[in-house]
């Protein structure tokens, strides 16, 4: 059984595409469209890696990192997807404990490589 990935993104089209690619890459993917769903999921199960967009309804990617690191005390790798030029958010994400980031437009292949690298760490 492949490694589990939690994909948190409110953009349905992109999420569907990444989901498809990750599944094709051998990962077990769970998709959540907003921060609230992500938190609910994380209470029950901790995936091997979290891939999250920064801008999400109810709970942003930054809040999600803070939740995972400080409340759940988990060291699960987190990869952030951010828009280009959103440098401050990326820096904040790293300060809070994000492991890596990737900017939009996303290359699904590149994301796959980054996920594999983070999991292997």
């Amino acid at each position, binding site marked *: 059984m492949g490694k589990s990935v939690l994909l948190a993104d409110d*953009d349905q*089209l992109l999420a*569907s*595409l990444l989901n*498809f690619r990750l599944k094709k890459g051998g990962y077990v993917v769970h998709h959540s469209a907003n921060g609230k769903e992500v938190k609910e999921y994380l209470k029950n199960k901790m995936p091997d890696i979290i891939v999250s967009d920064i801008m999400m309804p109810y709970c942003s990617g930054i809040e999600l990192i803070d939740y995972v690191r400080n409340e759940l005390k988990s060291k699960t790798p987190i990869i952030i997807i951010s828009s280009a030029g959103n440098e401050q958010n990326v820096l904040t994400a790293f300060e809070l404990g994000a492991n890596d980031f990737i900017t939009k*437009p996303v*290359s699904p292949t590149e994301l796959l490589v980054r996920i594999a690298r983070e999991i292997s760490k």
Partner: protein
Amino acid sequence: MIPPNQIKISLITAPEFNLEYLWWLTILFFVLSVIYFVGVFIIRNKITSNNSRTKNKKVEFSPMINEFLFYEDSNTKEEKMNYLNLKVQIRELIKNNFDRDVLTEVLLDLRKDLSGQSQTVLIDLYKDLGLHHNAYEKLGSRKWQVVSSGILELTTMEVDESYGLLIKFINHKQSTIRKQAEIAVVNLKEEGIKYFLDNTKFKIAEWQQLKLLDVLRHKPNYSPPQFGLWLTSTNIHVVLFSLRLIKYYSQNDAEQSIITLLKHKNRDIQAEAIECIKDFHFVNALKTLKLVYSKASHDIKIAILDAIGELGTKAEISFLENLHLTERNFNIKSKVIGTLNKIDPERVLPTKNISKPDFYDVICDDALQEEDLSIIDNHEDIILEDKNADVSTEVDVETTTTEDITVISPTVEENVALNDIEEATVEELIQKDETALDVDEIKKVKSLEDIDLSFLPHIKDEEALEEIKENETVVDSEQVQELEEEEQEVLKEEEELTFSFLPYVVEEDVIQQVTTSYKDDDFQPLFELDDESMEDTQEQSSINPLNNISTNINNGLDWSTLNSEKIEQNKVDINTADSAEPLISFENDNISFTANFMPQEELDAMVLLENISELGDCRELILLYQIIEENSSEVVIERANELIQKFSYQSPRPNELFSDDNDLAESVFTDIYNLADYETKLMLIGEIKKVGDEKEIDLLNNVIQTESKTLVKKATEALAHIKSQLAVVTDHSIIASDEDSIFNVGFELEFNRPTEHKRSVSNENGSTLFDQLCSMSNSLYRKKNG
């Protein structure tokens, strides 16, 4: 029974309106409202269902697109079969316009979010499915927004084949289409920028230039053309954009063209050319830079100076020093100094607000005198320059007066020792009038006798007084002691003479002038008062002119009361524009003051008049006439006449009040009655009967003469009632006026004979205010008691 639609409500004078129409209009409005709300509901539902349908379609297309995007040749046979099936399926789907639009939308969305190999596959899929043909159709639309979206779609999906179709839009009259086409042309093919720069006829906005540059920057493996080729374009925006591109891509092969553009009429192009020259270090441009400087705008001048600072050598110092002397704009002058220091560090040293070393030395008497003279000269020269506009213009004012330079004329060097206040005054004067000053002429004016001192103002403020005190420290210690002793004596004697009732308002310049001009020889009486009792004081106070002025100021001397006679006797020419009565005389370095005080009687009369002015009213008219008769002083008579005029205007004469022309004589019911209908008229007459007075008599008489029987009857009753009421009221009032002395005001309102008063009551043309008040109080009394 009157039908409801025929009942007239005429309390207000609105035009009659058919109620039937009103009903129809109500129904129409209601129907329109229903249509509007139903329309909004339908449209909203349609949009919602459309969105929902689109969303569902997107979900349906999404896995198909994923399959297409991530299809690999290494896939299994089943996957390949699945891929082929999907391809057939999607081709069927896009036959439907809606599906095709949704699929295009999905691909355009994904294009923004994907990069790398997936993006290439996506674009290929778009073309493979033939969706770009839809975009071509959009280009032919009459709607500019459709055309624009078609161009955007083709640009986003990088349909190179559309280049030929899009180039014709770069000169489209619709700016949105034009701008979209410009980006498309530059984006789609490498030669697009050349075509665009060659052919565009319209303005290229700053924002558009940035967008185009951004497109070029992100083009992979882009080799820019030589943008210097477009510096000769007739479109100035193309020239400007080319200059920016030249600067961005560091193309320094168009040196001569760029230098030539320094002479361009457009300031933006000039500024951009200067930037290029600076960046590429075109030293050959220095000559042209200096050439165009004289006729350039302020911004360009500063840019040129900046460029000279970057490129220039010590050969440019003479040019800059010349500018330093001639340039008047503060910013440019500062830039010139900055440039001078940049080329030759520390060439110009700070001198602003910096005193000369000898300023801190013990000042000897001789030095003091010289310095004072120089100060006087300088001040007077500057003010002379301010007054006389036709002074020749050999030397610039700023070069002779401002202290922030090292190249200063001898006269100005003396001024460096001046305190800050003097400097500020000089600068202010210069800024007000930037005319040049003839130094030679200034040097000729050396003594006080040669100077026209008529410009000396008459007033001085408190700040200047403080400055005087500060300046006193310049005098040597012996003098200071003597002066202090004398001052104390003067103060003791002047305590007996109090001028505190007079305001003291003194202008800064007078004190400054006196302060800077005193010396040993100058310690002569400055002014003398006419009053003999002040002669002793004068002798004491005139020892020190400075103390003299300051003590008099402190005592509140009103210079405006000083007389000019004494000055005329001394034959002093004081030419102030606004002072018809010169108060100060200057002769043989002496300054004299002359003052005449009012006689006591006149003063008393004036005080009385001022009190009347403040507290009095028309009752003081008799007294005012009396004052005029008793006094011969013109001032008093004039003032009294002013007050008479004032009070006469304030109080309406009783005769006027009781005249027929007065508005009080007219009934307030008249207008309403004339506009009212029958029922209202009846009601109004009833009201008149209750509250009316003699003003309504006219109206009632008129009603009796013109109206129908019922109204006449009512009006007659009301008239009889009012008349009976008025008779009672006047009787009471007469008795009251006789008994009570309070009402005996002594003016024209007199009711000595009852017969006369009755006649006034029956007077059809008017009434009195008194009658009106009586009738009002009467009606109120009756209302209160039922």
